[in-house]
């Protein structure tokens, strides 16, 4: 569609113009008003790498976040255009991979090679994915607009799913290119806050933003000094950012007052219950299990049932949890965390042999170095060996 191509052109132009003018003229007083999302992100990325501009960056970020509603001043693209762009990129007629690649490239302005590195996919694959997706947008007549009425909930769900996927890709990164991938989490959080500002009456974007911020507030404690993953019971809670947690919890509560709670709000409520507990032992497991029950009603997925079982193990013991996950075997057999959870429950029940088999299976199913290390440690401990080579 013409509009789409024009929007895309303007994104690139705005970015180039910002890069040329800001270092020379300084950051404009209200950059958000005239600058498109992608342009600003790209400019910020460039500024990020340049220590000389660090102060400007914080001013820019503050202005961007403090802005209630971007004021249109006749710039090339306005707030509504940004929102339209996001919905076009995340149209359900595009595959999830294409949605993600398009959002990163077009809405966030991340260069194709960086997108490829973030998803550990060859650059040519991403480039081809982008070409195909853009061609489909044009040839199939995918509109450049924000859906309305009964279409909105399903379409918004697509947008939020893409944002959360990008967030997790960055937040859970532990392999190579960690720094670059961590930036993805910040990008996704930023874009979510933008959706929240542009759709102030929707509860789910607010819930997702709260969820992301609850994760980020505890990110420090999630990884050891060597980058290894630290599980929730072992995390040093004094390293959690209490202020950020309280602010995020506030968002989740605000979303909850908007009506029926959707999946992101419920996930955020679960994470908030963990984040506000003084210790692992003091966790309110009854409340968490109840929230999972509510989540299962709106999102009847095997993975949710698995997470519920983890909470159930603390609440009613490993036996009850094991009984709850056995029916999921058929659906989750290819999922490493299913086997890792099963292994942990079996070990607590004293069934060491079966526990080892489950951990072995989990290990064969994940490439994530942090997760692999934890599983290898478990297996070594169960054999009475010292720590395996790292």
């Amino acid at each position, binding site marked *: 569609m013409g509009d789409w191509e024009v929007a895309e052109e303007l994104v690139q132009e705005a970015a180039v113009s910002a890069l040329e003018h800001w270092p020379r003229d300084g950051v404009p007083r209200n950059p958000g008003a005239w600058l498109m999302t992608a342009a600003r992100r790209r400019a910020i990325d460039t500024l990020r790498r340049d220590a000389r501009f660090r102060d400007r960056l914080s001013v820019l970020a503050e202005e961007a976040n403090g802005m209630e509603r971007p004021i249109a001043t006749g710039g090339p693209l306005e707030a509504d255009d940004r929102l339209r762009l996001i919905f076009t990129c995340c149209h359900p007629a595009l595959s999830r991979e294409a949605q993600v690649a398009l959002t990163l490239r077009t809405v966030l302005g991340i260069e194709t090679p960086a997108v490829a590195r973030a998803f550990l996919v060859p650059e040519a694959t991403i480039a081809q994915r982008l070409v195909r997706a853009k061609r489909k947008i044009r040839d*199939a007549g995918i509109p450049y*607009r924000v859906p309305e009425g009964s279409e909105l909930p399903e379409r918004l769900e697509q947008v939020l799913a893409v944002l959360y996927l990008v967030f997790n890709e960055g937040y859970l990164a532990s392999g190579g290119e960690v720094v670059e991938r961590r930036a993805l989490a910040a990008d996704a959080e930023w874009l979510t806050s933008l959706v929240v500002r542009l759709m102030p009456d929707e509860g789910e974007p607010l819930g997702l933003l709260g969820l992301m911020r609850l994760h980020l507030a505890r990110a420090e404690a999630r990884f050891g000094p060597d980058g290894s993953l630290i599980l929730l019971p072992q995390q040093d809670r004094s390293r959690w950012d209490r202020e950020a947690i309280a602010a995020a919890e506030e968002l989740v509560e605000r979303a909850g007052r908007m009506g029926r709670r959707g999946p992101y709000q419920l996930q955020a409520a679960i994470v908030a219950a963990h984040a506000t507990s003084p210790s692992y032992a003091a966790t309110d497991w009854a409340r968490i299990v109840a929230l999972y029950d509510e989540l299962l009603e709106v999102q009847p997925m095997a993975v949710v049932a698995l997470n519920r079982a983890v909470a159930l193990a603390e609440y009613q013991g490993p036996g009850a949890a094991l009984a709850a996950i056995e029916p999921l075997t058929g659906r989750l057999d290819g999922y490493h965390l299913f086997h890792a959870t099963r292994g942990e429950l079996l070990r607590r029940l004293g069934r060491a042999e079966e526990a080892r088999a489950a951990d072995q299976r989990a290990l064969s199913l994940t490439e994530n170095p942090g997760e692999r290390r934890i599983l290898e440690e478990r297996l070594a401990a169960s054999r009475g060996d010292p720590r395996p080579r790292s």
Partner: protein
Amino acid sequence: MKYMVMIAGNDEAWDRLSEGEQRASFERVRAWWDEHSAAGEIVEGYQLQPVSTATTVRQGPRGDVTVTDGPFIEAKETVGGYGILELPDLDAAIRLVSSWPGTYQTFEIRPVVER
């Protein structure tokens, strides 16, 4: 934009309906089709005879021709009809087919090459 929508149904599921249910479904679809044709959204289209009446003709590289009984793809869902739509964009097409009032179906929407 011009789209073709292929309407695929499950013949077995359809056969399980009572005659009364089949007739009621036809009536709803007829009224729906007429309404959207009158609005210019459905340009043309037909319901097809069941897939058991299909004949496949395959041309070989040397102009040889093989004729066989049945559709060219064996599948649970088979094309039972098609329509040519004239609508502003894909969302409008999705909206239109989503409002299909007959028994549940699967729709494939393809833009038409317009030269």
